[in-house]
């Protein structure tokens, strides 16, 4: 398994390749390295959040100024953001790449309830969702998801699992 720092660099490189230049974040333990790499990258404007739903509004405003935006959070943050995603992104046709750490994924102790509602909630919102489990699929999946987000003018979700984050 690749270490977390290299995995984080792999993910951020994938984001930069599709032109993402504005990322709002709220940490999960498993996302620490990704957030560090984003914060240190001079080509990405990083906005640390107090609550995930703020990121929906912030990314919407930034998108309308021409930025390509992503929102990085845990799946609990997705649940915190449902109204913003609905009445901002879906209502006003705003694309955001949602990068969501999938707590409660297969074999994960302690988050089974959260894990069990994650995909149904995304499905209920009509947000297309891709689960990333293989490191060598990161770049291609991020590229494809961003294309879908831009063309559909809707958020697209990529669920990040431990294996692509290089964490246990």
């Amino acid at each position, binding site marked *: 398994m690749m270490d977390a720092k290299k995995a984080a660099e792999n993910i951020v490189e994938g984001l930069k390749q599709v032109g993402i230049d*504005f990322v709002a974040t709220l940490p999960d333990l498993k996302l620490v390295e990704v957030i560090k790499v984003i914060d240190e990258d001079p080509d990405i*404007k990083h*906005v*640390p*959040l*107090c*609550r995930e*739903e*703020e*990121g*929906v*509004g*912030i*990314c*919407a*405003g*930034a*998108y*309308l*100024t*021409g*930025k390509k*935006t992503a929102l990085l959070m845990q799946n609990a943050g997705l649940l915190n953001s449902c*109204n*913003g995603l*609905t*009445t*901002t992104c879906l*209502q*006003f*046709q705003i694309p955001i790449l949602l990068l969501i750490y999938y707590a409660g994924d297969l074999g994960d102790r302690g988050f089974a309830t959260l894990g069990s509602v994650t995909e149904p909630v995304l499905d209920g919102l009509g947000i297309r969702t891709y689960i990333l489990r293989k490191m060598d699929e990161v770049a291609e999946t991020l590229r494809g998801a961003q294309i879908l987000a831009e063309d559909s003018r809707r958020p697209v979700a990529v669920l990040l699992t431990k294996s692509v984050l290089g964490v246990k």
Partner: protein
Amino acid sequence: MMKRDECLKVLARRRKDEIVVAVYTAAQEWIHISPSEWNYTFTGAMGQGSSHALGLALGRPDKRVIVLDGDGSLLMNLGSLVTIANAGAKNLVHCVCENGTYETNGGVPIPRAGQVSFTGFARAAGYPKTYEFSKLDDWDQGLDKILKEDGPILVDLKVEPGEDYPEDFRRLYSIEHREAFRKALQK
């Protein structure tokens, strides 16, 4: 206490090409008082106005962004004060139309109506400048300076309902206006 529409008219007279993000009742009045392609009424979710304004301010640091927030709205997204201060958005003017109620939702008082210090919240969060106005003349005289100095700035406007303006949610939420706003920003 100021009539809200009169308060907004003072801002409209001073406005040049600033982006104005307006929410709920303030938005319903603002689109009549200061029609402009730079009006942003596309926040949707309650409380998110200040967050949208931050995204606009960071995306376009060359333009001044004014948000006409509500007190109930800000309470719903109070952490945004910290996020905005942390982002150091110098071009952001955060006005709170403090009417003490959830006016659009039927006029029920907000918790601790009239006893909460929004300027105190903002200063504690790290806004370098805050102001409070309850008289139109003071607001009128203070505004020129506020529109020039570095922010983020919080302006607490003590207001009550003034004249009635026609509600038009379809206009506030129209994709056409949102697209026109995006295009105006790309000029």
